[in-house]
């Protein structure tokens, strides 16, 4: 039986040759993402700006203008109506109404009543109302969680490897998170709590690749004391390339199934992780690794402090006891 090999044996690509071009490209795209998010902004969901979102299924496609004027007639602010997946399903977004923390939930009751009045057959699939206070808290805790996750992972990498690797991880994560945000600004897909969960997932998984590559770099730094750093990085990247491809592809395959078949409600979450895996795979090769060159990682960085025992044991594998025989 002939087995599939995504990456042929003895592949030897000169990744590092393009590192400066890749860096410039990454900086430009990241800067563009940040600029896009700060000028065009994100399509914030009710989770983060408050207000209400109602999803209604009608038995027949409703008259949108009539529906809009009815809802706007309530004097609760400008409603935006959108088809959601099918012409029978309408999603109604309304801004945070004035009048204290309870105004949003009272407005939801009014909208519900108004729609039922003209369409008694309307089925309310989802109603979400979030007050200004709660949305601010959600925004704050979401941002905090992402920040802490990035920092926590960078510190972990620093402890397990060296400080240069920690910095590399942090810069990689910064790049990945902003690229995802940039995508959401560009596509104007709704940015809600699910997307924050997706970003946290990306923070975890995009670093998967980076860690595997770092692990190999560390191993090779110990093994080939005489090798220059650039060829050593190339070697490590090539050695792990097959694994990087197979794992990324299998995650993308699974996510593709969810994107194409899965419920519309989690489309944002799935697409965010999908994009994040792409970006993460790129950045583990072209951001995490070249940074080590600029931060002057050398074979001396991993000089064993206790030469005899380290040399005998080879790469460290303490701390893991899941599968020792």
């Amino acid at each position, binding site marked *: 039986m002939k087995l599939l090999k995504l990456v042929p044996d003895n592949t030897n690509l000169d990744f590092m040759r393009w590192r400066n071009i890749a860096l410039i490209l990454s900086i430009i795209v990241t800067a563009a993402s940040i600029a896009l998010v700060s000028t065009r902004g994100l399509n914030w969901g009710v989770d983060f700006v408050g207000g209400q979102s109602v999803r209604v299924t009608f038995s027949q496609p409703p008259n949108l203008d009539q529906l809009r004027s009815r809802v706007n007639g309530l004097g609760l602010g400008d409603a935006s109506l959108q088809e959601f997946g099918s012409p029978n399903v309408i999603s109604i977004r309304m801004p945070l109404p004035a009048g204290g923390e309870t105004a949003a939930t009272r407005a939801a*009751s009014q909208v519900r009543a108004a729609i039922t009045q003209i369409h008694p057959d309307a089925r309310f699939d989802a109603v979400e109302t979030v007050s200004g206070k709660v949305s601010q808290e959600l925004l704050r805790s979401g941002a905090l969680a992402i920040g802490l996750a990035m920092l*926590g992972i960078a510190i972990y990498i620093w402890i397990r490897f060296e400080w240069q690797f920690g910095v590399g991880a942090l810069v990689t994560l910064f790049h990945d998170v902003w690229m995802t945000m940039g995508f959401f600004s560009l596509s104007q897909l709704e940015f809600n709590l699910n997307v924050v969960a997706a970003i946290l997932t990306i923070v975890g998984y995009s670093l998967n690749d980076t860690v595997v590559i770092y692990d190999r770099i560390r191993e090779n730094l110990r093994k080939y004391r005489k090798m220059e750093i650039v060829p050593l990085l190339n070697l490590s990247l090539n050695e792990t390339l097959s694994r990087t491809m197979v794992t990324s592809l*299998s995650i993308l395959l699974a996510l593709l199934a969810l994107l194409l078949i*899965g419920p519309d409600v*989690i489309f944002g979450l799935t697409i965010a992780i999908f994009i994040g895996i792409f970006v993460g795979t790129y950045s583990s090769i072209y951001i995490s690794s070249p940074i080590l060159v600029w931060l002057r990682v050398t074979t001396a960085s991993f000089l064993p402090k206790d030469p005899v025992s380290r040399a005998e044991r080879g790469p460290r594998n303490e701390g893991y006891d899941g599968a020792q025989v």
Partner: protein
Amino acid sequence: MLNFPRWKVWGITLLCVFGVLLAVPSLIPANVMAGMPSFAQQIRDKVHVNLGLDLAGGSHLLLEAEVADVSRQRLESMEELMRRELRRASIRIGEVSTSGGQLSFVVRNPAQLGEARQIALAQSQGGSALSATQDWDVSVDGNRIAMRQNQAGIARAIDEAMGNAREVIDRRINQLGTLEPTIIRQGSSRIVVQVPGMQDPEALKQLIGRTARLEFKLVAPLSEEQLRSGRAPPGIQILPYVENGQSRPMAVQRRAMIAGDQIADARQNYNENGEVAVAITFNSAGSHRFARVTQENVGRPFAIILDNVIISAPNIREPILGGSASIAGSFTVESANQLAISLRSGRLPVELHVIEERTVGPDLGADSIRLGVIASIVATLAVILFMLITYGRFGVYTTIALILNGLMIIGIMAFFNATLTLPGIAGFVLTIGAAVDANVLINERIREEQRRGRRLLDALETGYKEAQTAIFDANITNVIAAVLMFYFGSGPIRGFAVVLMIGIVTSVFTAVNVTRMMVALWVRRARPKELHI
């Protein structure tokens, strides 16, 4: 590599069998389950995955207490208490003030100042008499004694009020029928209410949103100018009287004749004029008191006040001795029913506001489950196919590990009665895709070691050993992200984090230990000379 002791084989096998068995009850559809014997259903009740509101359908409400309400109420009751205690001790006071959140008064006779202070100190003791903590700070300035609530006192009062509120909400929701609500306190002044299967939260919101503080007070005569100025003399307050949708001010005595906490029962009915009304029955203390005040005040009007709004102000035509009364006041049958439920279950000790509401209809939830399950199966099949064409025999081992992993995630979630949410399904699919990573790392390493010219056994040994650090470090980063997600996230997101965390543990276990065992058993039995990988 070949050294795989028998106990270890048994241990791993047992763990897998146990994990898979735990998953079984959650995988049997509800309609099949209904036809099974009762012991099977009992097992299912103990060991099953809960569905989150976004999958099962239902309502989630986040309520926040009006905290200022608690300290204002405490101030009012302290004023009443001090007046009574000082009167009992024959201490005359004046210039009583409750402005600025503190109670202060002037003791007329300076000789009694010390005694008055002792009374104030005695009344401001919180908790049990033994603990001797002061809930109020008492200070004396000249002839004036001031009592101010301290932080500890307010915190304790809020805590008590929230505990009470939780119980009241529980009683009120139970009146709506056979729902299974989850009512949890969150933080110091919030309560989360989750009611699965509830489609229209309006009734719930009405029911929870009402404090249901019912009071009977005598109407006070006040001139039109005084009413309009809104400034009431001491002992009298001005409240809105809502009648037929019109609101006008009306003056009543500050002191209540009788309060709602002396109600034993309340029902919706119709009064003698055929209007929708709420019939209330007082408890014995309440009916005695009601009989006495109605006797003393025949011919005078009194106001029935609900949550600081006068809903009706009839004249007392005759003493009411039976201990029951009927309240009419532009009710519909529905609103009268809700009021009756609220009165029966007691008043909320503090006003609660709905600050977040999320409702999902049951049809949408069912759709989500169906599509989610199909997507999970397709995703698993796609990954399995990919593994088989990439790794051949080792792909089969990876596949077995993958299926075991999926079942064990469900099993562990069932064991802890964890909640599966819609993002959780996404987490499941993601885990299926990522779970093969450990195997990919191992398999690629084995390929590599073979290319370097190592012999089969050596390559297997090195592959498993060298891949371990990478597997460990790579998974820790996911754990860090998932833990933070769980800590900072709310409902559905937590469901996502739970699946990720469980998935990380099970995937490392199945990918490393299970496949290693299978490889070892195969090598021992077949003694292969070479390996296609």
